[in-house]
């Protein structure tokens, strides 16, 4: 599975969402609230073996924004 597929899968599983995850933004769906955000961050850390900084967790406001944040951790999506 490619990193992009893993990245998409984390969103789908964290939010139990079957739509187009690439368009997702924080609070764009009911499931991506403050609790869902923490679940998403934890799932990304586990999937990619990284530990996100607080500033990056706060900046992580959409699927697309997350791609540039993960690049800082040498995870190319």
């Amino acid at each position, binding site marked *: 599975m490619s990193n992009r597929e893993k990245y998409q899968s984390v969103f789908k599983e964290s939010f139990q969402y079957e739509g187009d995850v690439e368009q997702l933004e*924080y*609070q764009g769906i009911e499931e991506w609230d*403050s*609790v869902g*955000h*923490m*679940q998403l*961050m*934890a799932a990304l850390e586990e999937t990619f073996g990284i530990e996100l900084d*607080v500033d990056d*967790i*706060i*900046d*992580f*406001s959409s699927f697309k924004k997350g791609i540039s944040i993960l690049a800082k951790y040498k995870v190319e999506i």
Partner: protein
Amino acid sequence: MDSPLHFDINGIKECQRNRHPLLFVDRVFDVVPGEKASGLKCFSYNEWFFPAHFDDEPNVPGFIQVESLVQTFIMTFLSKDELRGKKTNFLGINNVKFKRKIVPGNTLVIHATLQSYRRGIATGSAVSFVGEDPACSADFVVAVPDVLDQFKPKGAA
């Protein structure tokens, strides 16, 4: 290693925000912040719910047993200096089991374990006993909203 902490009712009220008539732990002891806590709850017939549940057979409602468990559980992390006095919300309760009836005169002893606490989300479990008899057990996921809010993406409501 520091000695385990103990909290009387005033100490419990400093750590958590539950209050009468919904505070269901009288004393908390053997607390290792970030790891574990034990609690004690004495049920007398003066409890407000016994006349209603039930007038001919008073016993502790299940939701109150679960509250006793979770109120001991949250002491595993609200006993940490930086979290004292914060409100908590349930995110999940799983594997709840009731093993015996609890009646006036019973004392419930609760043992809670924190499995993980990270960025405002705590997971763990608690079990309770009357004497040596198992009474109730459950697994919990609990949030600290104040802490969760610190990690919200910028510009969010």
